[in-house]
C-alpha cells in the first residue's frame, strides 16, 4: 500500500493530539501547526525510503516535539532540555485536556464563525485545506485566508491556551458546539449546490462531537449534541430517493434508518439526562429526534410529546426556525388549522421573509386541510425561494400534484404591467422592485383575483416599514398604478402616504452657540470649520470639500462644486492661521497621514503635509464629543445644526 496514504492516515488520527501538545509547549497555535507540518513533511520524505516505523504516531509526535524544543532553544529559553526533551509521553488525561484546549481555542468567540469552522477542521479534524475547500464549495485560497486570519487574531488578542471556567465555560462551550453542529449541518443539508448531502462533513462533525463528549463528559449539552447528530445521521440513507431528491421524514423508509446510530444516539441522550439539570437546546432537539426514531411508522409518531418538547425548546431557543417547527408539530398534534394559526404568527417575521421552508410548511398544512389550490401556490413560492436543486424539484413536484389555476397569476400580470410601451426605463426599474417583492412574498402563481389589499399591506409592513418615507411612497405609488392598470381599485387601501418632508433640524440655541465659540481649548481647525458652517449656512459636505486654492480671502468666499460658499468677519480673522503657508489642497486636514494600506485620491491629499482631507464622519464625531456637555439630551449636536436657519 502507498506510503503517502499511510502517512496521511496516521496524520488524520494523530494531528489533533500533536498540534495540541505542541501548542502547550510553544504557546502559539500557528507556530505549533507549522512545527507539526514539519514533522509530517519529514515523515513523507523518510518513510518511503526507511519504511513505516513500528509506531508511526509516536514517531510523528517525537519529531514534532524535537522541533519545538529546538525552536524554544533558539528563542534562548535554554533550560528546557531536561523537563521537555526527554519527557515521557504525557499522561493521557493531560493529552486529552490539551485537545480540549485546542478545541476551545479554535472555536474562540473572538474569531468570525467561518474562521472558527475552518480552523477547527484543520487543527482538530486534521483535514487538508483542499478537503475543507471542497466541502464548503469555496477555493483553497479562501480557506487558507480564513485560517491565516484566525491564527493572526488569536495571536493579536493573546488568547490563552486554557480551559475556561464558570460563566465563561458556558459561553465558550456553546461556541464549540455551534461550530460542530454547523459542520454537521453543512454536510447534512447542504445549503447550496446539487447534492443534498456531503456525508464526509457530517462524519467529521460526528467524530468531533464524540471526541468532545469524552473530553468534557460532565456537560449535558455535549451529549445532547452528539445524540442529536447520531440520530439525524441515522436517517442519511433514507433521506434521499434514488434520483437524489429529498424524502420528507414521514415518507422515509424507516427500515433504512441505521439502528446502530440510533442506539448510539439514545445512549448519548441517556448520558445527558443522567447529568440532570434543566435540558438545554441540544438535549431538547435530541429528545425530539428520539421521538421520531422511536416511532415504527410515521402514523405512530407521538406528536403531542414532540409539540411539548418544541414548546420547551422555544423557551430556551426562540428562533424563527424553532417557532416554524413548533407550528409543524402543532399542525400534526392539533390539526392543520391549529398549525396554520401558529404559522400566521410567523408570517411577518422579516428573518423568515425569503426562507423557503415557511411557504413549504404552509403548503403542507394547506394540503392536509384540503385546500389544494392554495397549497399548490405555496409550494411554488417555496420552490422559487430555495437555492438547493434537489429541494426545488421536490417542491415543484408537490406543487404539480395540486390542480393548476386557470386564472391569470400575479407574476403574469406583473410582467404585462411592466412590459407596457408607455413606461419610461426609470419607472420600470422602480415599479419592478415593488412588483418583484410582491411576487417573492406572495408567490408568482397567486391568482390575480385572490390578491387583496390586506396581503399587500402585510408585504409592505414586513419589507418596508423601516424605510424612509420617500421609499415607502415610491412603492405605494407603484401599487396604486398597478391597481389602476389591473382594475383592482383599493389595492393600496392599507397603505397611507407618509409625510416625506424632512423634519426640520432644530438649530443650536444662540446661548449654546456662544459657549461653543468661546471655549478656549478648541483647536483652530475646528473653530474655523464650525464658524464657517454657521456663517455660510452651506452644506457640511460642501464646506469640507473646500480647497485652499479656491479660497478668495478678500471677497470672503470660495467656489466649490459650482456654488459659492461665503463667510463673514470671524471666519476671515481665523483663516490665515489655519492656512499657514499652504497654497493648495484640502482646507480641512486630518491630523495624521493616511495609513499605507489606504489609497487616497490625489485631490484629497495635502501636497505639503501628506495629510488627507478631513472626513464628514470624523468632523461630526469631534463636534458631537465637544458639544455633548452642552446638549441637554447628552447626545451632542450635529454639524448640520450649526446652520443658522435649518431647513
Amino acid at each position, binding site marked *: *500500500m*502507498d506510503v503517502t*496514504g*499511510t502517512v*496521511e*492516515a*496516521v496524520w*488524520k*488520527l494523530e494531528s489533533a493530539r500533536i498540534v495540541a501538545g505542541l501548542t502547550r509547549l510553544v504557546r502559539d497555535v500557528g507556530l505549533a501547526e507549522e512545527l507539526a507540518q514539519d514533522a509530517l513533511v519529514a515523515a513523507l520524505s523518510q518513510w518511503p525510503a526507511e519504511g513505516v516505523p*513500528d*509506531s*508511526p504516531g509516536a514517531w510523528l509526535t517525537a519529531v514534532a516535539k524535537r522541533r519545538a524544543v529546538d525552536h524554544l532553544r533558539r528563542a534562548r529559553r535554554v533550560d528546557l532540555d531536561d523537563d521537555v526533551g526527554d519527557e515521557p509521553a504525557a499522561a*493521557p488525561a493531560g493529552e486529552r485536556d490539551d485537545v480540549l484546549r485546542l478545541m476551545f481555542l479554535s472555536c474562540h468567540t473572538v474569531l468570525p464563525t467561518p474562521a472558527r469552522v475552518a480552523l477547527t477542521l484543520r487543527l482538530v479534524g486534521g483535514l487538508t485545506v483542499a478537503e475543507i475547500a471542497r466541502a464548503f464549495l469555496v477555493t483553497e485560497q479562501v480557506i487558507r485566508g480564513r485560517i491565516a486570519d484566525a491564527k493572526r487574531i488569536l495571536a493579536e488578542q493573546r488568547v490563552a491556551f486554557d480551559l475556561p471556567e464558570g460563566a465563561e465555560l458556558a459561553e465558550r462551550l456553546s461556541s464549540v458546539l455551534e461550530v460542530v453542529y454547523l459542520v454537521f449541518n453543512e454536510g447534512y443539508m447542504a445549503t447550496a449546490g446539487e447534492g443534498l448531502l456531503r456525508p*464526509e462533513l457530517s*462524519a*467529521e462533525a*460526528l*467524530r*468531533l*462531537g*464524540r*471526541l468532545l463528549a*469524552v473530553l468534557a463528559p460532565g456537560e449535558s449539552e455535549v451529549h445532547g449534541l452528539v445524540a442529536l447528530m447520531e440520530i439525524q445521521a441515522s436517517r*442519511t*440513507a433514507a433521506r434521499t430517493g434514488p434520483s437524489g431528491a429529498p424524502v420528507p421524514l414521514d415518507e422515509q423508509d424507516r427500515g433504512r434508518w*441505521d439502528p*446502530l*446510530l440510533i442506539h*448510539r444516539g439514545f445512549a448519548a441522550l441517556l448520558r445527558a439526562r443522567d447529568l440532570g439539570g434543566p435540558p438545554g437546546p441540544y438535549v431538547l432537539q435530541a429528545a425530539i429526534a428520539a421521538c421520531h426514531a422511536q416511532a415504527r411508522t410515521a402514523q405512530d409518531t407521538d406528536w403531542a410529546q414532540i409539540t411539548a418538547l418544541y414548546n420547551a425548546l422555544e423557551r430556551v431557543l426562540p428562533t424563527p426556525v424553532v417557532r416554524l417547527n413548533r407550528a409543524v408539530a402543532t399542525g400534526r398534534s392539533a390539526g392543520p388549522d391549529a398549525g396554520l394559526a401558529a404559522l400566521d404568527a410567523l408570517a411577518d417575521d422579516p428573518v423568515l421573509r425569503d426562507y423557503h421552508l415557511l411557504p413549504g410548511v404552509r403548503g403542507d398544512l394547506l394540503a392536509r386541510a384540503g385546500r389544494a389550490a392554495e397549497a399548490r401556490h405555496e409550494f411554488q413560492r417555496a420552490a422559487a425561494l430555495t437555492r438547493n436543486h434537489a429541494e426545488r424539484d421536490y417542491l415543484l413536484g408537490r406543487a404539480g400534484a395540486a390542480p393548476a389555476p386557470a386564472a391569470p397569476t400575479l407574476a403574469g400580470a406583473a410582467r404585462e404591467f411592466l412590459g407596457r410601451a408607455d413606461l419610461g426605463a426609470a419607472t420600470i426599474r422602480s415599479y419592478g422592485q415593488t412588483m418583484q417583492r410582491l411576487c417573492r412574498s406572495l408567490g408568482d402563481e397567486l391568482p390575480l383575483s385572490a390578491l387583496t389589499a390586506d396581503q399587500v399591506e402585510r408585504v409592505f409592513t414586513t419589507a418596508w416599514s423601516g424605510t424612509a418615507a420617500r421609499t415607502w411612497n415610491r412603492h405605494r405609488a407603484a401599487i396604486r398604478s398597478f391597481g389602476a392598470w389591473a382594475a383592482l381599485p383599493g389595492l393600496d387601501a392599507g397603505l397611507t402616504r407618509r409625510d416625506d418632508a424632512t423634519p426640520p433640524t432644530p438649530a443650536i440655541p444662540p446661548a449654546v452657540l456662544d459657549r461653543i465659540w468661546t471655549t478656549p481649548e478648541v483647536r483652530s481647525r475646528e473653530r474655523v470649520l464650525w464658524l464657517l458652517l454657521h456663517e455660510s449656512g452651506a452644506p457640511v459636505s460642501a464646506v469640507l470639500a473646500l480647497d485652499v486654492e479656491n479660497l478668495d480671502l478678500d471677497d470672503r468666499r470660495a467656489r466649490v462644486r459650482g456654488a459659492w460658499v461665503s463667510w463673514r468677519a470671524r471666519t476671515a480673522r481665523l483663516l490665515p492661521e489655519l492656512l499657514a503657508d499652504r497654497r493648495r489642497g484640502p482646507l480641512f486636514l486630518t491630523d495624521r497621514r493616511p495609513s499605507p494600506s489606504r489609497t487616497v485620491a490625489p485631490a484629497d491629499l495635502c501636497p505639503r503635509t501628506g495629510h488627507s482631507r478631513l472626513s464628514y464622519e470624523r468632523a461630526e464625531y469631534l463636534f458631537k464629543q465637544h458639544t455633548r456637555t452642552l446638549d441637554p439630551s447628552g447626545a451632542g449636536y450635529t454639524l448640520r445644526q450649526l446652520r443658522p436657519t435649518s431647513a
Partner: protein
Amino acid sequence: MRYLMTTFGDGSTPTEQQFEEMDKFITELSASGVLLAAGGLEPGGVHVTSLGSEFTVTDGPFAEAKEAAGGFALVEVSSREEAVELARRAAAIGGDGTTIIQQVFS
C-alpha cells in the same frame, strides 16, 4: 466511510496484559469517534447453508480455530488507509493473525 474489520487469530489465547491493552485501545478509539461497534466472537457458532431447496443447519465446532473469526470492529474513518492503520495498531497489541478489512456500503 465505514469498514468492517474481522480478525482471525492464530488460535492462541490472549494474555491478561493483552486483554487490558486491547480494552484501553478500544476505549480510546470509541472516544475519538472512530469505533462504532466491536466485539469478540464465540468459536464455532452455527453454520447454515442454503443449497437449492435445502437449508442445512450445523452446530460447531468446526475444523481448526484459526479459520474462524475471533472478533470484529466496525469503524468510521475517512480512508481505507486509516482503517489499515487501525488494524496495525490492533495487531501490535493482539499479536499474530489476519484481519480482513471490507468497506460497508449503506
